[in-house]
């Protein structure tokens, strides 16, 4: 394998989520996190899972990542059943989850070193390529604690992209960032998606973020977690989160979302 073939986009895969049910036991009571959730995600599609906390969207992402298992139901990636983590599906977490004992480039190299068929200089070249893609090629040897929150998530994005996965699973990756940094990253992520063409599943509770990024927004409701409604977003890209068109879509979805959230009193019962 050469660096060139390594840097060629891996074909994005199709995800079939079929009747996933998941229950947790927490302090003696059973939480019904997901109730027969089914969803088809096309190759190269950017799908946002949107809903209030407790609607099971992160749980679904973890099951797709192979970090959790479902009680019932299955997820297929290009027809292959998912039964554990795999290099074809990389994950980005809300906290950057970068390793503080490694510098920036070694963090990006971590997953690459586990990939056979490459020499270490080749891996370094690949890591360098992705750090350049996220605009951090001047910080190869910086320590993690020296980076801002936005830069950390950029490194995390480069780390997730580096093994050339076919699916990118993102769990509220920008939720902890300030608004300005977030807007920059929306632009970057759209640009990178156009270049790298991954299938992306993006979990968020921010309606505008979902509309800005997604080809499709899937609305979840909690207790138990279910898919309520789906919206196809056909706005031209790159999208600006502050545009009026986008705000109109967001208003429509917010209205729908409010209809599905039961008042707290009913839930507490």
């Amino acid at each position, binding site marked *: 394998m050469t660096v060139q073939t390594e840097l060629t986009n891996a074909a994005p895969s199709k995800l079939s989520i079929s009747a996933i049910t998941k229950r947790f036991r927490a302090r003696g009571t059973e939480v019904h996190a997901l109730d027969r959730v089914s969803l088809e995600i096309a190759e190269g599609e950017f799908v946002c899972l949107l809903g209030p906390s407790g609607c099971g969207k992160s749980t679904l992402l973890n099951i797709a990542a192979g970090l959790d298992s479902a009680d019932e139901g299955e997820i297929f990636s290009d027809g292959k059943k998912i039964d554990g983590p795999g290099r074809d599906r990389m994950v980005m977490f809300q906290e950057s989850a970068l390793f503080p004992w490694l510098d920036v480039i070694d963090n990006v190299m*971590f997953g690459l070193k586990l990939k056979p068929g490459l020499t270490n200089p080749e891996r370094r070249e690949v890591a360098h390529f992705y750090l350049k893609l996220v605009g951090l090629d001047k910080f190869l040897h910086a320590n993690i604690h020296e980076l801002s929150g936005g830069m950390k998530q950029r490194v995390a994005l480069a780390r997730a992209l580096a093994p050339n996965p076919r699916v990118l699973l993102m769990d509220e990756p920008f939720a902890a960032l300030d608004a300005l940094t977030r807007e920059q990253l929306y632009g970057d992520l759209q640009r990178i998606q156009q270049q790298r063409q991954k299938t992306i599943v993006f979990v968020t509770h921010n309606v505008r973020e979902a509309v800005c990024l997604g080809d499709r927004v899937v609305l979840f409701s909690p207790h138990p977690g279910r898919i309520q409604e789906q919206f196809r977003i056909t706005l031209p890209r790159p999208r600006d989160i502050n545009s009026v068109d986008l705000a109109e879509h967001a208003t429509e979805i917010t209205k729908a979302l409010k209809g599905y959230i039961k008042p707290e009193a009913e839930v507490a019962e």
Partner: protein
Amino acid sequence: MKRFLSAAAFFAGLLVIWEVLVRLKIWSPVLVPSPFTVSEYLLGAVRDGSLAAAAWVTIKRLVLGYTFGIVVGLPIGLLTARFKVWQDTLGLLALGLQTLPSVCWVPLALIWFGQTETAMFFVVVMGTLWSMIIATDNGVRNIPPIYARAARTMGSKGLHTWIKVMLPASLPFIVGGMKQGWAFAWRSLMAAEIYVTILSGFGLGHLLHYGRELNAMEQVIGVMFVIVVIGLLADKIMFSPWERFLHHRWGTQGK
């Protein structure tokens, strides 16, 4: 430079006060000899080689037992953190024995091994081993679970996760444990050397002990001084580089 000067001034001041107190006969010169008498002893002991020989014997015992304690303690600590069975057995034993001052092993070591090097080795190991196990165990338990999850998504599992993720992630705790183990080992070895004579080697503790027997206070104080210096050097040479690295990488407060 300013820091060096203030440190130098402080210690010079201490020496001056000491000398003045001895000159004014406020302290009896028999009980507290003057700094000059002490340095005379030290110079003599350096010249006739007795100091270097004793220091060598002590350091050899220390390094041997300490290394053994670290090499055995680290994997046991990983195991007690990973497996319930290990935690409930060896982990519990380590927790209990760690509270026992390691000097308390000296009488037992003498009965079991006699006045031998093995007894010294045993005492040093007992000083190191338990705190190393506890520190490693504690370090692993303090790792944010997200590190292991992130590593799993990138294809790391089993031994790879332990060596490449869990071990470096718990490094701050492990270095802390190594430092504590060193302090315990050093203290217990000194106690053992003062307490028993071992014919196969005269350590610093023995030198101190004979200073007392001969009523040569300049020897007692001189050897104490050497013990302090060795402790400081060990800290600067063995632990400071690690701690600097950790503070640099983790961004924790170094000064």
